[in-house]
């Protein structure tokens, strides 16, 4: 079973994940301050404050990056080069592949692309596998 850890503030990532779960039946855990991951999973977060990683996400991955397969981020292309840049930053800092960068709560095309990239490229993948970086 594929597991997703996600962080959401305005509800966009929440809605994105809901739709992913609806289609796939995967499991997802919303990251709270006391969240302890029980299984390896994929991280989906958002980007705030001119391209910053949200605090809750940062605290989670600082502790549990060894439990994460890939990172994805919601964002808005109106921010130009800062679009969903949290995914790029986490990918670089923790040497993880990027699953997908998508806008707001994602269109159906985004959701299918995300499912596809997680299912076909990351499942059973070893961490730090650079060949998986599709971004």
């Amino acid at each position, binding site marked *: 079973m594929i597991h997703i850890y996600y962080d959401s503030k305005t509800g966009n990532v929440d809605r994105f994940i809901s739709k992913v779960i609806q289609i796939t039946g995967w499991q997802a855990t919303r990251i709270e301050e006391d969240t302890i991951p029980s299984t390896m999973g994929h991280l989906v977060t958002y980007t705030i404050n001119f391209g910053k990683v949200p605090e809750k996400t940062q605290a989670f991955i600082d502790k549990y990056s060894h439990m994460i397969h890939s990172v994805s981020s919601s964002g808005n292309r109106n921010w*130009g080069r800062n679009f969903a840049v949290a995914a790029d930053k986490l990918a670089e800092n923790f040497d993880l592949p990027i699953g997908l960068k998508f806008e707001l709560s994602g269109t159906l095309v985004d959701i299918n692309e995300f499912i596809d990239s997680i299912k076909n490229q990351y499942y059973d993948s070893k961490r730090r596998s650079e060949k998986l970086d599709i971004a």
Partner: protein
Amino acid sequence: MSKQYTAVNWNTPDNDYALMFWEQNIKQFWIDTEYIPSKDIDSWKGLSWDMKECYKKALGGLTLLDTLQSHTGMPKIIDHINSLQNKAVLSYMCMMEAIHAKSYSTIFTTVSTTNEINDVFGWVSENKFLQYKASTIDQYYRAIDKETVTDEELFMALGASVLLESFLFYSGFFLPLWLCGQGQMVASADIIKKIIADESIHGVFVGLMAQEVFNRLPNKEEVKARFLTLLNDLYENELKYTEELYTVVGLTAEVKEYVRYNGNKALMNLAFEPIFEVKQVNPIVMNGLSTETTQHDFFSKKSTNYEKATEIVHLMHEDFEMDATVDI
């Protein structure tokens, strides 16, 4: 018993987002005079007559929307939002809308004559599609211009505001971004991109409040259908406006696609599903959004970008040695 007046207390958060939006808004603060569109004068001279007309009209239309939003939209909404902290964020956004509305004039004043500018503002007042856009949105703002309003009326006003911020602006934003994406009118585009950044967070913030109101509605499906009818009505009007404005420069199809793409984003700000099919947004426009530019000095101006100084004279130890031959 007379009405009890409450003071805004920021020590206790009203919710988990007001302070975050307050701080983000403040970080985004800018004024038009920090930018220097005069750098675009050469670029302006190189544009065709049709392109100049289209550009001026696009900016004229944007000015109307920002005027409506700062003079009516935000003030009416503030009246019916309970959280005092949310009201404060809205009043800050209201002030920024006034700066946006003025900033288009800063561009106009730089590239056009007074006669030309007056013509543009005359055109704005006469153009039936722009007037329809403004009057349609205004109707929902005016509907809450009273002591007590229903949740449905409030949701429709908030929804109309999100449509204005996240959807209706983009037929106008298209052209400055498209030009900037190919290196034209880039200094003016810096101003436009600051406005886009502001409108982006306005749409999210007002969208969040709209979702709160929507969630307590007893007749959600009915109100959602009413809202989608409004969206479609405005969409049809945007298509006609786009044709009138952009046919002469051959960009109609691209602008329409951009309008649909932003319509989906407005819907997402309200937690609704995207309804428009979008194939590909013009890559030059996306490039315009990503292009980091242009004007910067370290003392008086802001930029979308950090620019590195290229002519550097290093400070040396000798610089601090006193010249003893000079009388002190």
